[in-house]
């Protein structure tokens, strides 16, 4: 019988090698947040003259947009990302008054308010002299103020920008426009962190309840391994290839958490069962049995999930490829960590515990 448990220090070393580079890249800021988090405007467009991303960057710079990222996409499309532009501004702020008189159309009948003393009276029953002709707006040039321009009239900032670019590169054909204001971005960071942390606390509670303190803790350590591996990989990809993480990535992380625990539970459930059936054997041997017995199931489930996710990554729409990739990594890592981390931690813990108890007996 193959001895997996005996080589546990090797597995811990492998996990360290897998996670530490990612951790380093997380710390040096390799993670590239998308506009979901930072706020910004991002759009995909192609122009008749098919400018390159460098040409587009220059053109935007000339128009006063310096902080831009332009990426080339298939079929001559460009993805352009800037600061948030074109959000309709808050309306409550009063503009500075100007000293021109408001032109009132004297010819049109001025409105008048009429009163109906009794609450039950029909509106039509009112008999007020309705030839209203009191021009209440008299010519008073002194203090009147020009009305605010409508927030969105013909030329929004974005529309102007589109026109300017079309003048240079020919007719534009936008297919996706997205603006995220800074408020939403900041809120997303907060709510994502809360979702992930509290989600894990729930799971820890459930695992403690069903499997006891030690198993629960080991499962959470394995889970952290998976999360760090996936986030770390995206930090590396972000550092070298500008791969961004977005709101969907947070969802992917939460799914990975669920899958990782799901996988660990299958192994732990078998350990729990074997402890009763093979009560005489050492804990290490029981864990080894259990791993080997569940191994084929773990691998096959990983394969079926990987196959569906692989199809999604290869054939699915580009916007969810990174999402699929994150899930794929997480699933493989989840299977690995259940066998080679979670179960091994249990054995290591047991060993350490036994030694600690043995020591006072000797002295």
């Amino acid at each position, binding site marked *: 019988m193959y001895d997996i448990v005996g080589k546990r220090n090797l597995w811990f070393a492998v996990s360290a090698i897998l996670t530490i580079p990612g951790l380093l890249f997380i710390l040096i800021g390799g993670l590239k947040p998308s506009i979901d988090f930072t706020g910004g405007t991002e759009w995909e467009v192609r122009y008749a003259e098919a400018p390159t991303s460098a040409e587009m960057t220059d053109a935007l710079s000339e128009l006063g947009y310096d902080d831009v990222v332009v990426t080339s996409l298939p079929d001559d499309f460009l993805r352009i990302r800037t600061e948030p532009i074109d*959000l*309709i501004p*808050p*309306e409550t702020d*009063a*503009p500075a008054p100007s000293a021109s008189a*408001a032109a009132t159309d004297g010819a*049109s*009948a001025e*409105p*008048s*308010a*009429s*009163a*109906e003393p*009794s*609450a039950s009276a029909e*509106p039509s029953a009112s008999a*007020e002299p*309705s*030839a209203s002709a009191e021009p209440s*707006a008299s010519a*008073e040039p002194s203090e*009147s103020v020009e*009305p605010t321009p409508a*927030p*969105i009239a013909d030329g*929004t900032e974005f529309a102007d920008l589109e026109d300017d670019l079309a003048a240079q590169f020919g007719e534009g054909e936008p*297919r*996706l426009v*997205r*603006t995220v*204001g800074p*408020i*939403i971005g900041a*809120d997303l960071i*907060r709510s994502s962190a*809360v979702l992930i942390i509290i*989600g894990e606390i729930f799971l820890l509670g459930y695992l403690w309840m069903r499997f006891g303190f030690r198993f629960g803790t080991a499962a959470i350590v394995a889970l952290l391994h998976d999360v760090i591996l996936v986030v770390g990989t995206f930090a590396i990809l972000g550092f070298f290839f500008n791969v961004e993480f977005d709101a*969907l990535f*947070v969802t992917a992380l939460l*799914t990975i958490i*669920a*899958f990782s*625990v*799901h*996988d660990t539970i*299958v192994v732990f459930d078998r350990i729990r069962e074997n402890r009763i059936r093979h009560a005489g054997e050492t804990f290490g041997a029981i864990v080894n049995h259990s791993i080997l017995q*569940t191994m084929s*199931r773990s691998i096959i*489930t990983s394969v079926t*999930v990987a*196959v*569906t996710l692989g*199809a*999604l990554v290869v*054939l*699915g*729409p580009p*916007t969810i490829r990174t999402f699929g990739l994150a899930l794929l990594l997480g699933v493989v890592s989840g299977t690995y960590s259940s066998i080679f981390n979670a179960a091994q931690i249990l054995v290591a813990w047991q060993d350490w515990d036994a030694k600690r108890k043995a020591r006072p007996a000797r002295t």
Partner: protein
Amino acid sequence: MTWRRIAPWVIGVIAIVAIFINLPRQTLGLEWLSDEVLGVEFRTVLGLDLEGGLRVTLEAEAQGDEPITDEQVATARDIIERRVAGIGVSEPQVRTETGGDGSRRIVVEVPGVSDEDQVRSLVGSTGRLQFIDPLGQQLADDQNIGTLLEAEAVREIFDGGQIDPASVAPDVGTGNQIGVSFNLRDAGNQAWCSFTSANVGRPGPIALDGIIITTPTIRAAICGGTTIITVGTNTPANEVERTNLYNTLRFGALPISLTEAGFETVDPTLGANFLGQALIAGAVGLFLVLFFMVAYYRLPGAVSAFALLFYTLVIYAIFRLIGVTLTLAGVAAFILSIGMAVDANILIFERMKEEIRSGKTLGPSIEAGFNRAWSSILDSNVASLLVAGWLYWQGTTVVKGFALVLIIGVLVSMFSAVTVTRTLLRFVTRTSWGRRLELYHVER
């Protein structure tokens, strides 16, 4: 024992109902077949990213120190929905959201192509209506009184929230005069009464978003009852003016101020492309899993393949039945769930193989496989449900859609992978060929 007998019938009925719900009526020329039963309509709802369209996110800001109430947000939502519907947009979706920091948002989604600037300016405008006491100032139409209000040179008597929306009606007065009539709530009535009593013959201007929209002259004290604002004689120009005034008084007054916090437009063609790609990916993934299960587990694999088809059918039927909005993330969750749905089967079959290897005969091995695997299936699925439930409870809209698909997926997969597979296997093992061990791919 009884459940054993009933299960095949339950499965059959569910499958037939699911097929009935899923039938693509238009493609098959079955328009005569009802797609509505007991008032529940079956339809596939696509999200903005798959259907194309415009989404505007508005953040609510309280007026003054008062915190924003649920009721205010709901009222604003209703008003915006009517405004958008009013310009002839088909099936606008307006919903409220609470951000992680407790901020309130209103999200407007308009599917398909539309004049985005028109929609955005329409939903974004707060339309805060104020009845103004000019305090002796002469105010003209279209005049911005923001600075005057700040300097307290004019005074707000009450705001549009005091208008009873149900009472606003177009009014045809005597002598060919047209106007709009409305009633006020109690607090507004009192303020209006004391103001109009003191100002008969003088103007009582109304402002929308700090701009005077009309300056009617007060004819008499209005203490309770109906106020009528007369626009003028019944000419086409005045009729337009009356309609505008009516809309402003009826829908114009949002109880909260809204700031645009984000927007998104997706080209419908691009959305359709995405949907096509996602469906192909899903179909390929499903096929690969089916193929793998049959190749690896043989007869039980074929049975689980049937269970997986049942799963796919039922999931899609549930989506259509309760109107789950399918976004890209939701489709991704669905595809992921296909891979995970067979996990329970794999657990059971692996267990079954072990039991056969240990020397048991086929029948008891199958039963033991199901019984022993159950505790892992239950515990692992409860853990998934816990996470998905938490996501659904606390997540933003996109996350919620994903979580809902995951929850439905886990629940249905427990039924399909356990009950459906077990029932089918029992049928199969009654035949003599169904008991041939080589069909179970067990190496002794």
